[in-house]
């Protein structure tokens, strides 16, 4: 109960808080640590515990949510000291962004803070995952999201189709995503309603595509127009902004979301992140997940149905490992996905989206997708 209340509060506060207020929160946190230092206490801050141990799959909402376990980060802990220092550096940096009204990508933060430590050969940060993880700690520690810290991930993802948006932060430009040429609209890393407004959606469904190449194929085949669909390519794992936009279109225009990835555990995992959120961002699932999303393909059934036996590939070790893990995920506990995962582990094969070109270039647009969508041949 307490957890739910806190979450509710967090959302409302977030919406209203201006950069100065967020900066003050960071300052309060830092002052607490300074006080620890001056009163001979182990410098400490608290954050939410992340990872499997504190992530739950909600049977009600069908998304991943973060539990209520918190954890402390102490300086006087040999295993935490560096992380503590790193988080302080990230805090100081974001504090300055907020005061100076600048925004930066999380990769820029990494590069701004990376240098060697004193005379040692050790770096402040060895790679971006270290600074990224500090950012997540900080988000939870001051109850906010990175967008409010003036940070954003690298933008990735493309939108195409009959949907009209308005960029409130850029001269109120209003545009239809089917009229921007074949490249479509590059999805921003921040697509919050106060920045990007969804004006009108005439399409009947959203088709989310894993690979850029398949997106280009479908644009070239005129698929969006013929089928009255919105195309969104994720370019691999879907970025935060892309997930947020899919979530918003689904919610605001009330149209179904179908997902089209490679037929392998990695592709299926991309689907599951769009559908019910990721472990890393379990706290933000409410903003991003689309529990109603449905999976079109590729599946191993497709291999048989469309006679693609000759164009399958061998599963890699990483795929096998991931498939085994996925068998145990609560959100894959339905007979369709269990069967699919087991089949892949049996056959040890995978099938790429582009393998459909084996039939003909237009096969995917003219036959495969329309046929599947018409028959509602989906996985849950």
């Amino acid at each position: 109960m307490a957890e739910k209340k806190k979450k509710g509060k967090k959302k409302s506060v977030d919406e209203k808080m201006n950069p100065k207020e967020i900066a003050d929160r960071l300052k309060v946190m830092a002052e607490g640590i300074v006080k620890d230092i001056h009163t001979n206490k182990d410098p400490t801050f608290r954050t939410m515990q992340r990872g499997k141990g504190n992530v739950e799959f909600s049977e009600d909402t069908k998304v991943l949510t973060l539990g209520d376990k918190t954890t402390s980060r102490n300086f006087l802990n040999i295993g935490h000291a560096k992380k503590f220092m790193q988080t302080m550096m990230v805090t100081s940096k974001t504090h300055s962004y907020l005061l100076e009204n600048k925004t930066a990508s999380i990769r820029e933060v990494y590069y701004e803070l990376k240098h060697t430590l004193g005379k040692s050969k050790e770096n402040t940060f060895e790679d971006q995952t270290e600074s990224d993880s500090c950012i997540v700690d900080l988000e939870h520690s001051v109850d906010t999201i990175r967008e409010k810290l003036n940070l954003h991930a690298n933008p990735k993802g493309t939108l195409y189709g009959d949907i009209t948006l308005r960029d409130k932060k850029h001269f109120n430009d209003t545009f239809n995503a089917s009229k921007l040429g074949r490249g479509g609209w590059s999805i921003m890393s921040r697509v919050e309603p106060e920045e990007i407004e969804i004006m009108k959606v005439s399409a009947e469904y959203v088709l989310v595509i894993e690979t850029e190449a398949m997106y280009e194929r479908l644009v070239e085949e005129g698929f969006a127009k013929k089928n009255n669909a919105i195309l969104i390519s994720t370019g691999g794992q879907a970025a935060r902004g892309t997930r947020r936009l899919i979530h918003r279109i689904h919610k605001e225009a009330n149209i179904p979301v179908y997902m089209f990835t490679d037929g392998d555990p990695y592709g299926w995992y991309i689907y599951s992140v769009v559908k019910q959120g990721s472990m890393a961002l379990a706290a933000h699932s409410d903003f991003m997940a689309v529990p109603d999303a449905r999976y079109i393909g590729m599946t191993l059934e497709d291999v048989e149905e469309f006679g693609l036996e000759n164009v399958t590939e061998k599963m890699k070790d990483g795929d096998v490992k991931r498939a085994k893990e996925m068998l145990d995920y609560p959100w894959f506990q339905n007979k369709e996905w269990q069967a699919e995962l087991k089949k892949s582990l049996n056959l040890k094969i995978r099938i790429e989206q582009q393998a459909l070109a084996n039939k003909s270039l237009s096969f995917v647009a003219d036959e495969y997708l329309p046929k599947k969508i018409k028959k509602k041949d989906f996985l849950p």
Partner: protein
Amino acid sequence: MSEEQTATAEEIAKEFKEHSVAEFFKKNMQMLGLTGKIKTLTTIVHEYVTNSLDACEEAKILPEIEVQIKELGAEYYEITVKDNGPGLTKETVGKALGQLLAGTKFHRMMQMRGQQGIGAAGCTMLSQITTGKASQVITGSGSGKVISLEITIDPKKNQPKIGNLAELKKPFRGTIIKAKFKGVKYVNSEQAPLEYLRRTAIANPHAQITLIEPSNQKIVFKRTLKDIPRQPLEIKPHPKGVTVDELITLSKYSDGKKVSSFLKNSFDRMGDKAVSEIAKNVSFDMNKDPKQLTWDDAEEVVKQFKNIAFIAPRTDGLRPIGEDRIKKSLSSIVKPEFLSVVTRKPTVYSGGFPFQVEIGIAYGGEAGRAGSVNEEGVVERKMEIMRFANRAPLLFDSGGCAITKAVQSIDWKRYGVKDFENAPMAIFVNLISVHIPYTSAGKQAISDEADIMEELRLALMESGRKAGAYISGKKREQEKKMKKELFFKFIPETANALFQITKAPANKLEKNLEQLVLEKLRLEEEEEPQEQPSAEEPAEEKGKKEKVKKDG
């Protein structure tokens, strides 16, 4: 017929005897420790140096010994050993260098170095059979008269042959021996003369030893102590330790008129009561001449020895190096960070032989066998066992030696040494006894008699415990230092970040963070549990008690 036969047999015997010494020598080189080119060279150095040390000690002179090894050709070397000892006379030169197996050391129940090897005369023989050359000797007593001569051994008679004898008027005191050898080789290995002399210097801190290598490099092991060790006492053999063969040999040398008086005078702890006890139980007349003692008679006597409860043998004849002397010596030569030395009380093995164990564990510094140089330019060292028998280094057959076995039987992890083989550690072990039980005639490995193994293990554990306390302390110290450095590395950036946000002065934050780290590490140290006493302790205590009983 029978006369003729006898004559022939005598002739054969005579002929055999004439050839015997040289033949025996050649055939038994292996048994005498003369196998391998490196080992042979080390053995030669050992023989000369040992003679010098023993002579100096007997004359109460602080030894100064210089060994020079010159390479004359392929596997052809000249060895010169010069000492400042009492010098030799023409007669004693012959005995010392010109007659095989003529030493006075046989049948003496006395702790002496020279129980090993072939003797200096063996070197004379080896030189002449490998090069055909005589050994040169210059010797003087310091009274102004010096003699110079060349010596070989007549292999038929086993008698010295002296040539080019000259007298010089010089105040020189000491002996210089110069001899050439073929089929030997000088290298720098653990079994080579340099290591032999280093270890000799460690076990004889009162001696100054110099080596001039074939490369002309001069290495000096300086004297660390100026007092001459006390002479070991000659102790009569204890009845429990005597074999039938030894009993017969002793009887041949006896001055006693009767077996009974021979036994009483020749053995330690042999009283009238024991003699009458033996007389009651043997089949022969105890009044007979001991020279007439037969093998069967001797067997009966030895059997009686086993049955009688004798007092344990005297142990006061043994002369350990002593804890202080070993400490000084190892400190000066090995320069360790930590040193733990234990000289145990003397005790007895096989019921009849007094012996005593001394252990030194040196850790860090130059302790251990030097290996390759690591990335940081530091010489990596491996654990080394320095074995000594009556202060003489044992360099060969380490695997079969009781000392090695005892060291390996210890669970060194218990004493904080995790990777024992690669620890920067030297374990010095000196076993002294009137009779060291070697495993073979090569005399390079000590037999693992139960009493000796037990005593070695107790001594190792005792010194191991002391070393262990230091090693774990040092490890803790290192860990603490490492942790401190790690925390300190992260302080400046943390302080600066906090300063940027709060404007609290960074240097004060840094200082307080440093204090916090130091305080934390101090508390951690206090919480560390103290070393647990070893589970082997009870055995140690038991051992001590038993010994007290024996000594009493």
